[in-house]
C-alpha cells in the first residue's frame, strides 16, 4: 500500500507541475496562438499524469478483482479520450481563430497592447509604419 501511495503522489504531483505550466503559459503569453501552444501540450500531459495516478490508486487499494479492474479501465478510458480530444479541441479553436482573421502577435505590431501603452509608444508606432 505504501508503494501505491508513493506512486500516486509522484504521478499526481508531476501532473500538477505540468498543469501549473499550462496555466502560467495561458496567463503570460502575448496572444491566443502562443497560449494555444502552452495549453494544448502541457494541459494534455498534466491531465494524463493525473488520470494515471488516480487509476493506479484505485487498482492498488481495491485489490485485483473484477470491479476494480473495470474501474481502472474506465479511468484509463477517460485518459485516452482526453488524449485524443484535448489537442483536437485546441486545434479546432485556433483554426477558427485563424479563419476569423486574428493576426499572430508580432514585435512591431502596433495593435499589441504593450507597444500601444508604453510611454514611447507613439515613436515605436511611427517606425513601425515606416518599415511596413
Amino acid at each position, binding site marked *: 500500500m505504501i508503494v501505491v501511495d508513493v506512486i500516486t503522489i509522484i504521478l499526481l504531483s508531476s501532473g500538477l507541475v505540468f498543469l501549473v505550466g499550462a496555466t502560467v503559459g495561458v496567463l503570460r503569453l502575448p496572444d491566443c496562438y502562443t497560449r494555444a501552444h502552452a495549453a494544448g501540450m502541457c494541459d494534455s500531459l498534466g491531465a494524463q499524469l493525473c488520470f494515471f495516478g*488516480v487509476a493506479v490508486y484505485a487498482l492498488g487499494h481495491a485489490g485485483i478483482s473484477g470491479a476494480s479492474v473495470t474501474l481502472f479501465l474506465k479511468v484509463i478510458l477517460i485518459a485516452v479520450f482526453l488524449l485524443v480530444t484535448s489537442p483536437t479541441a*485546441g486545434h*479546432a479553436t485556433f483554426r477558427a481563430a485563424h479563419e476569423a482573421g486574428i493576426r499572430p502577435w508580432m514585435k512591431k505590431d502596433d495593435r499589441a497592447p504593450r507597444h500601444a501603452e508604453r510611454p514611447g509608444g507613439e515613436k515605436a508606432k511611427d517606425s513601425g509604419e515606416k518599415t511596413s
Partner: protein
Amino acid sequence: MTTFFSVFALALFALMLADLYRGVAGPTIFDRILGMGLIGSKTAIVILIIGLHYDHLDFFVDCALTYCLLNFVGVLMASKYFIHGGLEEGN
C-alpha cells in the same frame, strides 16, 4: 492520503481561478473558449479526486467521463460558432 487529496484538489481550484481570469479577461473570444476548456478538463480531474476522497470512485468516474465529453463538444461547437463572430446573416 485524504489530506494529500484535499490539498491537491485545492491546488487545482487555485489553477482554475487563474484560468478563469483568462476566461473573463481574454482579449479575443478564442481566449475565453481556451480558458473555459482548461477549467473543464481540470474539473474532470477534481471529480475523480473527490471520488477517491470519499472512497466511492465508481460513482464519480462516470461523471468525469460525461464531463470530458460535454467539455469537448462545447469547445468544438463554440469554436465553430465563432468563426464568423456569431451567426451569419441570412442563415
